[in-house]
């Protein structure tokens, strides 16, 4: 008897279940019923910015991704008083729970966002044909920060590195001798100049396509200075065609200074350091011509180079020149390595000026670089180990927020 009842109630439940399920589905289609509103709305200053933005966060509506799953978007509304008129400031698709209300920094701008002023916010969950609003959050004030916390790792890195450089330089000043290992590209410089002298043919020095302020170009200026001094001693002609007017001006000064150091200012000829054009391939077309017509014995390509690197290196090889290259442009290093006789790879180019000059102060800076490199390598090794054991602390040390 009791079992029978149980069975019939089970049947009834089943029946009801299959009746209710489609019904509930039909009801769910009815979007006129507003979704549950977003909750826990919070508004506050956006951190680490210039003070023209407020960040709003909320907890998703019950129908977003769950429940009836019919929320399509959230609208963010703003007012200057909790009871005043709220205007729509922006919209984000469903699934998002933050919004940055940003505005322009100029007072004249239509979309100016005043700092140091109270604002109130509401968030509206929208379905296709209805919506519901959250409670009012605020007041929130936008203000600018004086230090970007997310950039703290960079700050620490900057400070640490500066201290290291200064420390090594002061060691160098005190007369400490530093050892640096030999670099093939540097050792080849003297031979290359000697070769040009023996053959009685000129040296071609290309500073690349960089501006006078690119670090690669600056490193190249220092090397040019040393080489110019040596060519003055050997009475060898040096030709420096330039791609940038400012680079040309500095190159003229640099070579002149080199000749002065060698005690041969009379031999300096300004017409050998000249400007061609700033357009990459036109410049290369002209340099190609110079190589073949002047039959340069030695070509230096030191600085910033782009696609033209291989055109230069191959034409130089047609002309039978010895070629020494160096660049920090990642994509071009392979071509120089393959097609020139010696290549200074990336960092070696910057180090070259210290190598050639053997100035203790520059060598000191080089030592600081090596120390920093050792720290980086240690961090890499420890970091990878830590990551293998799902230990995320190390990664955080290097994570920079923009």
């Amino acid at each position, binding site marked *: 008897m009791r079992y029978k009842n149980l069975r019939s109630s089970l049947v009834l439940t089943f029946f009801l279940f299959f009746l209710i399920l489609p019904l509930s589905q039909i009801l769910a289609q009815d979007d006129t019923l507003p979704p549950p509103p977003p909750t826990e709305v919070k508004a506050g200053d956006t951190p680490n910015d210039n003070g023209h933005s407020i960040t709003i966060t909320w907890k998703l509506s019950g129908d977003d991704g769950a429940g009836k799953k019919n929320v399509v978007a959230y609208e963010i509304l703003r007012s200057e008083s909790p009871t005043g008129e709220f205007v729509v400031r922006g919209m984000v698709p469903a699934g998002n729970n933050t919004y940055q209300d940003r505005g322009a920094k100029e007072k004249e701008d239509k979309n100016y966002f005043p700092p140091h002023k109270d604002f109130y916010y509401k968030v509206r969950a929208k379905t296709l044909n209805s919506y519901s609003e959250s409670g009012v959050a605020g007041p929130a004030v936008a203000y600018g920060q004086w230090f970007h916390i997310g950039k703290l790792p960079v700050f620490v890195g*900057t400070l640490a590195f500066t201290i290291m450089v200064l420390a090594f330089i002061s060691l160098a000043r005190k007369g400490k001798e530093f050892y640096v290992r030999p670099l093939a590209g540097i050792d080849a410089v003297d031979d290359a100049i000697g070769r040009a002298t023996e053959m009685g043919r000129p040296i071609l020095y290309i500073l690349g396509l960089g501006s006078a302020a690119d670090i690669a170009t600056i490193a190249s200026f220092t090397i040019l200075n040393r080489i110019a001094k040596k060519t003055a001693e050997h009475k060898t002609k040096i030709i420096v065609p330039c791609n940038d007017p400012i680079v040309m001006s500095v190159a003229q000064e640099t070579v002149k200074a080199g000749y002065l150091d060698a005690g041969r200012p009379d031999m300096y000829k300004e017409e050998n350091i000249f400007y061609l054009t700033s357009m990459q391939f036109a410049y290369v077309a002209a340099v190609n011509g110079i190589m073949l017509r002047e039959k340069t014995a030695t070509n230096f390509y030191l600085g910033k180079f782009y696609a033209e690197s291989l055109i230069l290196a191959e034409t130089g090889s047609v002309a039978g020149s010895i070629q020494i290259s160096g660049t920090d442009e990642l994509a071009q290093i392979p071509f120089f390595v393959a097609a020139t006789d010696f290549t200074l790879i990336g960092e070696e180019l910057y180090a070259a000026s210290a190598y050639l000059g053997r100035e203790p102060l520059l060598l000191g800076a080089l030592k600081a670089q090596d120390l920093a490199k050792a720290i980086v390598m240690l961090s890499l090794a420890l970091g990878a180990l830590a990551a293998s054991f799902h230990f995320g602390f190390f990664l955080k040390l290097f994570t920079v927020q923009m």
Partner: protein
Amino acid sequence: MRREVPLAITAIVGFALIIVYFIPHPPFNHSRDFFEDLFFIIAAFAIWLGCLNLLKVNADKVYLKKKGWPFSIVVWFGFFLMVIVGFWEGRGFMNPGTTFYYLYDKLYYPLNATMFSILAFFVASASYRAFRARNKEATILLIAALFVMLGRVPFGYYLSSWLPEGWRLGNITDWIMDFPQTAAQRAIMIGIALGIVSSSLRVLLGLERTFASGE
């Protein structure tokens, strides 16, 4: 004055820009953009230096009847052709349909594209010359280049289709690009970063000052 002022300007501007990087508060947050603009403006002035130098060198060649002087007239012609038309057209000088655009499209572009495409020939001759298995390093260079070159065209498919999926040339290419290539690039990049940071410091501290040299 001649030496100290430039070094002081470099140091003050440089260190200020480093400090400003950490300050989001106005007006400092825009100072970096402003200094970048200054950089471009100065370069825009400096272009006179370059062009005058170019014209002078070529005028000298014509005047002194140096070897190949007629070509210097061509340089002058080309320069003034572009400058006159460019200023005549005004601000919309590069809009399609203008004479300047025609000159760009029919003179500048083909010359530029051809010079660029010469690379195809040089890539071939450089590979022939440089990719010899002289030692271990050169052999690695050579093999990696061969694999990638073949792996990127249908030809590589024919060569390696007998291999199981995942071991074909195309897959090997992808693997090399994804892992060893990434590793090497990172090592170079980190080295470059340290080098640039250190060189920047040297410049700002006035240790590397060839750029301000002279009398």
